[in-house]
């Protein structure tokens, strides 16, 4: 399952929905809104996306993960809009017969999301706000 949502992500449901009796390992990555960024306190975040392209890229990453690693399935959900500290901004769930491929695919997915999915994060501080830009 691949999705962009504006409400809190139901992580447990995302992990339960993917599960099948042949799976031996589930690896879950949760991106969480941190209370600091480069030692500066963060009040909250907003995520914006170029939504049709972001969803297309997320689906591409999911398909590449399934092609390149020995996994059975992968779900990727990214949340958009306003998020409080401690809330989950993105979740990736990988189901596989064996754990090594599940770890590799999950890490590939989050690393690639951070490179090619058109989503941007704005951090709000006590004294202002800044759009965060990834490495070019």
């Amino acid at each position, binding site marked *: 399952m691949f999705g962009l949502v504006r409400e809190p992500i139901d992580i447990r449901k995302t992990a339960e929905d993917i599960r099948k009796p042949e799976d031996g390992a589930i690896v879950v990555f949760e991106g969480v809104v941190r209370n600091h960024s480069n030692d500066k306190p963060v009040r909250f975040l907003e995520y914006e996306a170029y939504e049709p392209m972001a969803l297309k890229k997320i689906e591409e990453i999911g398909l590449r993960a399934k092609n390149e690693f020995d996994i059975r399935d992968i779900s990727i959900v990214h949340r958009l809009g306003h998020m409080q500290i401690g809330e989950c901004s993105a979740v990736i769930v990988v189901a596989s017969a064996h754990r090594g491929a599940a770890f590799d695919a999950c890490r590939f997915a989050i690393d690639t999301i951070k490179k090619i999915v058109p989503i941007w994060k704005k951090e709000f501080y006590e004294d202002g706000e800044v759009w965060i*830009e990834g490495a070019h």
Partner: protein
Amino acid sequence: MSIKVLFFASLAEAAGTRELILEPASLTDLNSVFEKCAKERPLLESHRASVLFALNSEFARPDSPVRDGDEIAFFPPVSGG
């Protein structure tokens, strides 16, 4: 011809808009469209070194040609996850 131009994140703030409809008189490429926008919206200039181009929801090179009905997007390096 008519093309749609989208701006995101810091580029939308620099452009002062999220969306423009342009009607260039002749065939052009992504880079020329950015040039044209930056001339009218000078805050975009400071993003020239890092801006990414998308053409119809796919990353594209600055010299990609633009056709009637295309959707172009200009945005900064991504920071999701």
